[in-house]
């Protein structure tokens, strides 16, 4: 009895501490939302920790149309387009490589897999300059520069050439699929492509969802690459758009918070809806590393 009561008390204290901690973690989000609904006078003039006098949604409108000749919607659609291409590319090519590593036997398999994993520890910045030069050499008659610089292609084409994280994640999943399924299909004359397409891919849906979510998130949140490759306001993603906006509108906190909220919102919604896949992805890649 006493031990049960002590246990209940312990859980109660723990839960309280966790809730307070969780609320502290949420402070930046509260602060962002509250500021985005205030007038500029309220932001600087009013008493500390004050709430907005009314929801001033016009900050969102001002933010949306803040830059000449382009709305925030353009940035939003650009981010959406690039992140979608990256996701498609990664899901297709990583799953193909993972299928080969998990089910096929060929010379140099382990070596190639080790090399692929090793790229995980290479800081991306090491290849920044050479990749920039590569895209500068690749011709593109439709772009003003005559090459790939200033276009959005460098931000997503790479995704169609595989990737260490996705291949590793899916290989782990594919290895758990009973080989008998594939072997039986092979005996019946199915090609490796058909085994991949009609047995492995449908069974791996949860892992594919995990990879899709992560690919989308990394692309959506990336700042450095868009900063280097994009030149024209029309091609900007939300991250560079926001950074540009920040440079232009110093001190306009309500509008900036509105912009931050709009660019964060899709990922937060995706997270709340698909939390399971996020958590599994992080845990899976972490545990078996």
């Amino acid at each position, binding site marked *: 009895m006493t031990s049960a009561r002590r246990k209940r008390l312990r859980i109660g204290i723990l839960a309280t501490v966790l809730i307070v901690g969780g609320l502290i973690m949420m402070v930046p989000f509260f602060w962002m939302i509250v500021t985005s609904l205030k007038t500029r006078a309220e932001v600087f003039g009013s008493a500390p920790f004050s709430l907005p006098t009314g929801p001033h949604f016009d900050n969102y409108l001002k933010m949306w149309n803040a830059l000449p000749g382009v709305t925030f919607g353009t940035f939003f659609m650009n981010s959406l387009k690039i992140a979608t291409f990256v996701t498609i590319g990664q899901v297709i090519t990583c799953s*193909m490589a993972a299928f080969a590593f998990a089910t096929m036997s060929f010379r140099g398999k382990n070596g190639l897999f080790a090399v692929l994993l090793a790229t995980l520890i290479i800081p991306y910045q090491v290849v920044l300059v050479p990749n920039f030069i590569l895209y500068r050499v690749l011709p593109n008659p439709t772009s003003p520069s005559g090459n790939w610089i200033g276009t959005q292609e460098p931000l997503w084409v790479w995704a169609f050439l595989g990737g260490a994280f996705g291949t590793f994640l899916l290989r782990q999943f594919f290895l758990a699929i009973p080989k*008998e399924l594939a072997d039986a299909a092979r005996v019946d004359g199915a090609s490796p492509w058909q085994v991949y397409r009609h047995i492995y891919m449908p069974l791996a849906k949860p892992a594919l969802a995990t990879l899709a979510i992560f690919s989308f998130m990394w692309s959506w949140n990336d700042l450095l690459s868009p900063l280097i490759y994009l030149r024209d306001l029309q091609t900007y993603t939300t991250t560079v758009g926001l950074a540009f906006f920040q440079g232009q509108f110093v001190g306009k906190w309500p509008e900036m918070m509105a912009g*931050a909220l709009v660019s964060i919102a899709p990922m937060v919604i995706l997270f709340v809806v698909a939390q399971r896949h996020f958590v599994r992805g992080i845990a899976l890649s972490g545990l078996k*590393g």
Partner: protein
Amino acid sequence: MSRTPAPAALGRPGRIALGLGRDRGAGGASPRTIGSDRRWVAFFLGPTVIGLLLLSAAPIGAAFGISLTDWDLLTAPKFVGLENYTSLLSDHRFLMALRNTTFYTLVSVPLGLVLSLGLALALDQSFRGIAWIRTAYFIPIVTSATAIGLVWMWIYAPTGGLLNQFLVALGIQPQRWIADPFWAMPAIIAISVWQGLGTSTIIFLAGLQGVPQEYYDAASVDGAGRWRRFRNVTLPLITPSLFFTGILALISAFQIFDQVYVLARPGKPTDATITVVYWIYENGFNFFKMGYASAASWVLFGIVGVLTAIYFRSQRRWVHYQ
């Protein structure tokens, strides 16, 4: 081709399974494994191999070649040997960048690991509502450092900022935070720890859930208290998770860029906030010193490589695989 093979195969699993038992685990090539046909291997691995060569292997080599030149992209590269590397040694801003990045890593990595391990232990409970509490700690993971950096910039703002409002309410002297050379790096570290807490916590939680309950029971029977159970059961068994989160945190800490870029705007990072990756970005893509930037990226690669190698060698002494 429709979906015929799967159902047909499922119709008679017994025979097939028996026939293929031999192949499993052998690892060697066998005519009955899915494909040893080179054309199919090439088909499935083609994109990955091209990507490895074109976007990883060749650029790493090229970066070293470029680092031996003086190149502004407009005129032909000029071979200068190791001059870029020797120049780095006396480049004040680069040395500051190196110092700041090292400080950032040395503080944010251990701090983040300790906090997230504690958080994982606290969250490893089952009571009603725990899922919502976990969500609150995990949400920062998905926010872009650019957007949330803006929010933090506003929290740190000298006038009107939330943090100073809070300090004034407590009767404490307000600070200039990002604009103050002393507080700038700790302020950036706070953002990163806040944002990265969830990732390591999730890995630790998965590790904790893999610790068999019997081990705890056995320790309790032996009279071990809460601390001894943590020290002698939990900690050794989650060292693989600790090892992995450590390496992830280490590599990403050396790549800190977004927060610095956003918080230093408008303008550039000061000597107190510049990091190695910002320095590479600035020299490569603002000043178009491709050789100089490449040399710095190789220095970064070298540091991360050496630290990773040391870290991997150390695992024999403290990581326990079950």
